[in-house]
Structures are given as structure tokens and as C-alpha cells.
């Protein structure tokens, strides 16, 4: 076995071979799937908990205060305490709620974000599945979450929840368009929808630099519209605290509420990692053409560090945006999408196509 932190392909193949050698084919696949499922689940929980903690600390520093610091060093175990509490909290059943939909909704939301992780390459060879239509899959899966939100709002038998869910529906359906179009800009440049191929294509320069200004505009549009798609501030109309108390999850308590809470942060992680993969080269180190020595030093930094560094930087930008801006109104939200982001995006695709056609990109 030839294992290195720079290439996980051989490691995965070794496990695969080991299982198939020792078990019948059916059971080997079952065991493989179970292992992957468990690993993704663990990863999901850890990243979710860390992001909640990070958000609290980041917003605290932006607001001139220190944030949680009494549970563990620098309050690091704060979210674990929250988790224990939410696990043990009573689940309230609403009398006139639609029981089935009310109970299913949080799971739909969390499964939607769960499925999207599968396609994301964390390092070379480290991904659950490498579709050749990876981007399409992620866009399709991430928009499933809105079904859960709509169900949650509808089934709660609460007017605030309903308004929040309807807002969220309008919001996500329209911003889906911008997310897709801004990714298409890069697909034109990359010529593929496969995540691994997109990352390989950035070996000699990230797309955000390769694609001139259109790629940068696409990145900004993607950042805005994906923030809106994850229901985060300043687009958090679905749970607008000052207007709708807690929006679509007003009636949820305990662990079901925690699912919504966690799904929000995981969605943030997913869109940030897509942005990092598509625009910033994923796990690919920072290379400058012609500087062999510099590139060589950069290669020493493991891909996982590059990947998480980029992802968390983009998450930090999203937090920065959230903790600075006031919330938009629903009509302004739609105006922003249909009057600004969409036309800009369409023109942007044209320019990008022109650049690629003329071979002007690096």
C-alpha cells in the first residue's frame, strides 16, 4: 500500500481491493457504502459543530466582544454543550399540525444537504463519488432542501411559518437560476462538469484568475446567490427574526430544530466548497506559471489544507456579509435577482463564451 496525504487514490483502491478479495461482491459493496456513510456522517457532524462555533466567534470579534469562552479552551466545546441540550430537549407536537409532514420536514432538509457532500472532492481521490455531471448533481440536490422548508412551514399550522416558507420558496427557486448560470460560466471555461476534471484543469492557475473578469463576476454572483440559497443573512427572510419570530421553524423544538440549524451551516459549507472547487482550484495548490521553485514549495502543503483553507475563507466572507448588512425586503430580493443578477449573468456567459472561443484565456 502506497499511502500519502497528497494522493488518496491508491489508499481507496487498496480498501476496495481488500474488501472485494475477502467478501462476496454484494457484501463488499454494502460494507463500502456503510463505511462511506459513516465517515460522511461523522464529517457532517464535526463540520456542523465547528461552523456553529466559528460563526459565534467570528461575529463576536466583529462586534467588539469575545464570544463563548467558558466551556473548554476558548469555548471550543460550546456547541457540543448545545448539542447535548438539544438532544435532551422535549419534542413538542403541535395539536393541529400535519404530523407526518411536520416530522419528515427536518429530515428532508438535512438529507438534501447531506447528499450534496457526496460529489465534492476534498483531495485527490478523496470523494465519495465522481460523477461526470457533478455540478449538475449538486445543483439538483441542493435545491431539494426547499421542499423540506415548504413542508415545515405548511405543516406547522402557524401563520408565521407559512409566510416564512412561502418567502423561502420564492427566494430559492429564483436564486437557483443565478447559481446555475454562474456555474455555467465556469463550465464553459473548463469544458466539463466533472469536479475532478475541473480541479485538474486548474493545475496551472485557478479559474478565477484564468477566466479574466467574467470569472470574477461569476464568482461574485455565485457568492451572492448561494448566500441567498442557503437562507443566510442578508437574505434570511425565511426566518427573519424581527418580522416572523423564527420563520419556518417557529414550531420546531429540540433536535428537529437542531437539524434545521445544522443544515443551514452545512449548506453554507457546501456552497463554499463548490465555490472553492470551481473558482479557486479546490485542493489544487496556488501555482504561478514560470515560478518553478515557488510552485514546488506550494506543492508541499497538503491538498486537504488547501481545500479547507479556501473553503473556510469563503465561509468567513459569507459570515462577514451576514454580520454587516441589514436584511432585504422580499420584493427587493426578487428585484436583485431578476433585474440585476440574471442579466449580468447572461451577458457574462456571452463574454466568457467569446473569450473561450477566441482562446484569450490563459
Amino acid at each position, binding site marked *: 500500500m502506497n499511502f500519502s496525504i497528497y494522493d488518496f487514490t491508491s489508499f481507496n483502491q487498496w480498501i476496495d481491493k481488500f474488501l472485494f478479495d475477502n467478501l462476496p461482491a454484494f457484501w463488499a459493496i454494502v460494507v463500502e457504502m456503510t463505511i462511506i456513510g459513516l465517515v460522511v456522517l461523522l464529517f457532517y457532524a464535526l463540520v456542523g459543530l465547528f461552523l456553529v462555533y466559528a460563526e*459565534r466567534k467570528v461575529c*463576536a470579534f466583529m*462586534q*467588539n*466582544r*469575545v*464570544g*463563548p*469562552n*467558558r*466551556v473548554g479552551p476558548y*469555548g471550543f466545546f*460550546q456547541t*457540543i*454543550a*448545545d*448539542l*447535548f*441540550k438539544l*438532544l*435532551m*430537549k*422535549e*419534542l*413538542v407536537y403541535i395539536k393541529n399540525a400535519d404530523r407526518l409532514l411536520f416530522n419528515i420536514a427536518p429530515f428532508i432538509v438535512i438529507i438534501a444537504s447531506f447528499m450534496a457532500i457526496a460529489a465534492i472532492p476534498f483531495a485527490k481521490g478523496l470523494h465519495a463519488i465522481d460523477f461526470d455531471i457533478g455540478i449538475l448533481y449538486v445543483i439538483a440536490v441542493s435545491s431539494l432542501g426547499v421542499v423540506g422548508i415548504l413542508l415545515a412551514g405548511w405543516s406547522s399550522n402557524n401563520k408565521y411559518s407559512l409566510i416564512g416558507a412561502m418567502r423561502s420558496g420564492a427566494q430559492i427557486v429564483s436564486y437557483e437560476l443565478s447559481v446555475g448560470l454562474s456555474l455555467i460560466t465556469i463550465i464553459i471555461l473548463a469544458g466539463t462538469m466533472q469536479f475532478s476534471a475541473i480541479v485538474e484543469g486548474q493545475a496551472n492557475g485557478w479559474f478565477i484568475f484564468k477566466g479574466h473578469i467574467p470569472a470574477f463576476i461569476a464568482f461574485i454572483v455565485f457568492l451572492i446567490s448561494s448566500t441567498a440559497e442557503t437562507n443566510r443573512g442578508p437574505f434570511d427572510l425565511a426566518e427573519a*427574526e424581527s418580522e416572523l*419570530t*423564527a420563520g419556518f*421553524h*417557529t*414550531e*420546531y*423544538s*429540540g433536535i428537529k*430544530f437542531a437539524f434545521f440549524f445544522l443544515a443551514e451551516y452545512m449548506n453554507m459549507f457546501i456552497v463554499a466548497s463548490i465555490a472553492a472547487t470551481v473558482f479557486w482550484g479546490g485542493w489544487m495548490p496556488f501555482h504561478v506559471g514560470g515560478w518553478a521553485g515557488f510552485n514546488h514549495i506550494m506543492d508541499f502543503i497538503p491538498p486537504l489544507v488547501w481545500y479547507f483553507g479556501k473553503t473556510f475563507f469563503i465561509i468567513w466572507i459569507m459570515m462577514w456579509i451576514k454580520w454587516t448588512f441589514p436584511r432585504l425586503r422580499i420584493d427587493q430580493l426578487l428585484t436583485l435577482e431578476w433585474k440585476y443578477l440574471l442579466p449580468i449573468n447572461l451577458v457574462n456567459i456571452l463574454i466568457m463564451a467569446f473569450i473561450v472561443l477566441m482562446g484569450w484565456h490563459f
Partner: protein
Amino acid sequence: MKESDFRDNETLDLFKKSGGNIFLTTVDAMIDWGRSNSIWPLTFATSCCGIEMMAAGAARHDFARFGIEVYRASPRQADVIVVAGTIVNKMAPVLKRLYDQMSDPKYVIAMGACAVSGGPFFYNTYHVIRGVDHVIPVDVYVPGCPPRPEALLYGVMQLQRKIRLETMANPRKTQELK
């Protein structure tokens, strides 16, 4: 802060004794640790004390250090209701309803003279509840008019001490005693 530095250790000892032969297991200790370190308050303020509650959450005093900054507007997700301000007869049913809507385990801090006893409105008025404990069970009383944010933080620490006495077998024993 040492245990002996706190006030009213006698009542706490009484709670401990009422537990009888139930001992805190490891699971209990873990759950209590979680509960006591993540007390999410409900955004509920009726009058002046609400401003000091806001000040306690703001940059100078920073509630968040205790992990309490997650102010939930929905009672379903809140753990503690800080009754900050006067409760009048018209408001009392609403308060009771809010308390009922909260999911267990739930705690109550009566903040300020009005919530503790009616305060300045104890005599001579016709419309004020004389102490919020006539409506809902109160865990910790924080007197003051309004109490300083530090006093509220102290009240929260008292509540944390109380939560740490809970067991799985008898989770609400500290309130049933009254």
C-alpha cells in the same frame, strides 16, 4: 468563582437533600453540563429591565461568554424565560401561555423588582401581578430596579448551579419542591 462565594447556598443544600438516594451518574453529569452551559433565553421583555438584559447581551458584558447569546424569538426553542419587567393582569395569561409553549426543560429567571414581587407597584395599584411566581414557577430571583447586567449574569450562574443538580430520574425536582 468558588461555591462558597455564592449566596443562598442553604436553599441549594435543601434541593440537594430532597434528591434523597438519587446520585448523579456520568450521563446525568454530561447532560447537566450541556444544559447548564447552553441556556438560550427567549426574547421577552416588558419594560425597563429588558434594556438591562439587552445591555447584558451587548459588547461590554457579553452574555455570549456563557453560551447564552442565542436569543430565540420562538418559545419552542428557548430554555429560559427571563421575565424582565412588570407583568400586569392583562399580560399574565400571555406569560403563562408562553411558558406552556416552551419545551422542557425550561427555566424562569425573575429579573428586577417588578417580576420578583411587584416592586414599586406592589401597593396602590390595581393591575399588577405581585410577583411573577404567582403565574409561573420561578427558579432564580434577581432583585434590583433594574439589576446591573453583572447581577443578571450572577443570576444566570446561580441558575447554572441549580441545573447541575438535576438527574435523569427526576429532572424537575428543584422546582417541584416549592
